[in-house]
């Protein structure tokens, strides 16, 4: 690094990160052709993000579990057979030649969760049948009365209250001392006592076991990531973060709890969301520093059309989310806002953001309107429907993609992809989407 990171402007940081993303210094590709392909692909994605007209429209499916399903693997295999997953993903990349892939984020290691006895999800191999995908079980894991404790010290709350509740094996962590009580010699020994308790030690052993499993998993997935890139495919997600409202709403308070809080505990809810802003920024930027990919995947849930009014969105959801986005951009990273469901009601609100600093990835939003409202502000991506990919014909897929390119892709700043993961799509439809991108997506 020539200039000290702390004194660099956001633009300089972004430029440096994008340079690393496109030019991958020191990385060895499988062949000169693969290297050329990688540079071409990373360049068109960068150009689209920068609101320019790229040489062609970047095109790739949001692969979801399509690669593992298509390789004949069950959802259980996907969570337990790391080598099998890697093989399936490589086969997918070779066969479909997408410009980018989503990465291993959702290809999670089941054993970690078995070891820790995770309560927030059910998964195949545990309670669900082998062919079913892991699913979240919403509940009020955190009570409304606990907002104060959460906001006062999120990390302490997670360690001593939340983790013991959501992981059966970590119940003894409830006995963890208040860490800031470790001060001076006279106050330290009492704080150490919990670490000497057999049940607490057992919890740490289980954490170490789960940690070892996570290391085994990342060794395979990291190797896979390098192999995918060596073939010339770019990464679409270098890290992840959530809207604070969702971070608290999804796995702490649950949808019902969160929606009731909007009426019963409005101030506490807003305060907690604000408290989560720096944590989400740190989570995103830390991952980007590890992966060297500045694109930050941000799955948005409870702010979608119909979930709340625009007034509520502007009061409860958007302010802290916008702060996270700005914080990520300040560090030279790119928030990739995955607006699952529809975002038609919100377009005018989210357009209030600095130009060329994020990507909006839409699922069921009207792309023509999205282009009109957001076209000058952000690159937009999407939105071939999963239903169409699953139950439609290749001709229908191609026609839809063509229309998208002509409207949403007019004058660049557009990436052709799906809404949610294509999981059970017909292979012929995935091919049709890729063909459509290459056939209709050339600007020059």
């Amino acid at each position, binding site marked *: 690094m020539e200039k000290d990171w702390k004194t660099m402007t956001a633009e300089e940081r972004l430029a440096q990160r994008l340079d690393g993303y496109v030019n991958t210094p020191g990385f060895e590709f499988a062949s000169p052709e693969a290297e050329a392909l990688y540079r071409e692909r990373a360049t068109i994605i960068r150009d689209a993000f920068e609101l320019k007209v790229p040489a062609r429209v970047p095109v790739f499916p949001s692969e979801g579990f399509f690669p593992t399903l298509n390789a004949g693997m069950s959802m259980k295999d996907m969570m337990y057979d790391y080598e099998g997953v890697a093989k399936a993903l490589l086969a997918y990349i070779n066969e479909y030649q997408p410009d980018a892939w989503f990465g291993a984020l959702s290809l999670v290691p089941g054993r970690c969760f078995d070891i820790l006895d995770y309560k927030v999800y059910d998964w195949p191999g545990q309670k669900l049948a082998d062919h079913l995908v892991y699913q979240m079980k919403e509940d009020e894991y955190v009570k409304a009365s606990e907002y104060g404790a959460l906001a006062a010290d999120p990390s302490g709350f997670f360690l001593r209250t939340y983790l013991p509740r959501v992981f059966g094996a970590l119940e003894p962590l409830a006995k963890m001392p208040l860490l800031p009580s470790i001060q001076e010699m006279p106050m330290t020994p009492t704080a150490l006592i919990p670490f000497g308790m057999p049940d607490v030690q057992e919890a740490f052993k289980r954490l170490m076991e789960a940690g070892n499993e996570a290391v085994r998993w990342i060794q395979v997935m990291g190797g896979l990531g390098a192999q995918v890139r060596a073939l010339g495919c770019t990464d679409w997600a270098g890290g992840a973060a959530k809207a604070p409202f969702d971070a608290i709403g999804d796995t702490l308070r649950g949808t019902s709890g969160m*929606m009731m809080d909007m009426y019963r505990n409005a101030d506490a809810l807003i305060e907690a969301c604000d408290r989560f802003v720096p944590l989400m920024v740190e989570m995103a930027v830390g991952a980007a520093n590890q992966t060297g990919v500045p694109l930050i995947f941000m799955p948005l849930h409870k702010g979608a059309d119909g979930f709340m009014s625009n007034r509520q969105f502007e009061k409860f959801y958007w302010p802290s989310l916008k702060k996270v986005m700005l914080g990520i951009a300040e560090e030279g990273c790119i928030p990739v806002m995955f607006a699952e469901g529809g975002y038609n009601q919100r377009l005018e609100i989210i357009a209030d953001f600095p130009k060329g600093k994020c990507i909006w990835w839409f699922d069921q939003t009207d792309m023509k309107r999205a282009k009109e409202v957001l076209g000058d502000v952000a690159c937009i991506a999407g939105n071939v429907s999963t*239903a169409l990919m699953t139950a439609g014909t290749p001709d229908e897929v191609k026609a839809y993609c063509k229309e998208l390119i002509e409207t949403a892709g007019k004058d660049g700043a557009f990436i052709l992809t799906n809404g949610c993961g294509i999981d059970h799509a017909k292979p012929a439809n995935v091919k049709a989407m890729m063909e459509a991108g290459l056939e209709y997506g050339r600007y020059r």
Partner: protein
Amino acid sequence: MSQELIAAFVEIREEDVRRITAELLESGADPMAVLEAGREALEIIGQRFEAGQAFVPELIMAGEIMGEITALVKPKLEQTASAEALGKVLVGTVEGDIHDIGKDVVVFMLDANGFEVIDLGVDVTPQTFVDKVKEVKPDVVALSGLLTLAYQSMKDTVEAIKEAGLRDQVKIMIGGAPVDEHVRVFSGADAWGKDAMEAVAFAKQWTGGQK
């Protein structure tokens, strides 16, 4: 006073609803009339939801508030008279899918529109749907799903109903975020809806229900 209750309820002023309900009951108001005021408010909230003026938080709070009113009224109630329902709708999230928010919104809206709703919950197997169709003889079966795996489960459920010889006795509608006409054709359902209002419209159409 019951107009005041309805107004407070519709605006989700929870504390006011509690206070007014207690005052009404203490002053000797007919418990059934209080309950009816609550139902009326629910109906208005349903209409607001339909018009895009109320959203999920209001529906959830409405459910909560109605529960509170019912709890206050119940001790004073001697017998419950059940109103004539427009028709029976059997609702559930299909096998393999455990998402319930969309389904719950549909249940709320059907209920608010005068249907008798039998909610089977989530991850409902085709066999359970078949057994329940035999048991409660609904006019309509509504299948919900959020995940793409629901496509196959919806198809399996429609086929199981068909194999049990019950297909001509019920109308079947499907719904959920990833559902569209392609999925309707694939599953063999009679209709698909993009939201809870369409679910109500189909249910009304099929039961000849005009309120």
